């Protein structure tokens, strides 16, 4: 079945440093969504990418969808303590269910 892996599993950064998480799918995706889950909270939708090679920017977030539509990345510029949480990608391949990635837990040290 479809597998979606993310690296790294954990990331500690100093406040102000940049952060990147990478998402890789075993199958081609029709779209990819990114969610953020604060500690003790529920996943909250951040952004969706649909087109091959698409790049979207949202404030300090930059998200990319690979040309082959099998990988994606989320980059945060100048992290803040409010960025703490786990970032999940979620991929949909054709009519298959949305499969969540393994997540990257971000810790920001003030």
């Amino acid at each position: 079945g479809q597998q979606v892996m993310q690296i790294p599993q954990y990331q500690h950064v100093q406040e102000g440093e940049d952060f990147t998480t990478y998402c890789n799918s075993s199958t081609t995706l029709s779209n990819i969504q990114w969610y953020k889950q604060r500690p003790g909270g529920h996943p909250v939708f951040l952004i969706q990418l649909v087109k091959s090679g698409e790049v979207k920017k949202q404030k300090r977030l930059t998200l990319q969808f690979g040309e082959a539509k099998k990988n994606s990345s989320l980059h945060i510029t100048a992290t803040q303590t409010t960025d703490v949480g786990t970032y999940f990608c979620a991929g949909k391949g054709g009519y298959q269910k949305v499969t969540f990635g393994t997540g990257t837990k971000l810790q920001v040290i003030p």
Partner: protein
Amino acid sequence: EPEVTQTPSHQVTQMGQEVILRCVPISNHLYFYWYRQILGQKVEFLVSFYNNEISEKSEIFDDQFSVERPDGSNFTLKIRSTKLEDSAMYFCASSEGLGLIQYFGAGTRLSVL
């Protein structure tokens, strides 16, 4: 802003008991989902529901699980005979369409003793 509502927020049950987790999806949404998240692990898909029937389910969603939309607003997940390993956070989500943004509820923490 419309939101997905889940009750109860925490459910404690004895092993072997039946539990029903309840969700009220966003009113104009057509697709409904249940996910499970074991503490510290990733979000795992259980089942999707559309047009009053299951559209897809994972290998986790075995015969012990069932879903129902008993009326026009509620969406429930039933676990017939709970096991210790069913202890997890259960999230309900809904979306306007297949593959569109999923809005998650705050979750129900199920503790099986």
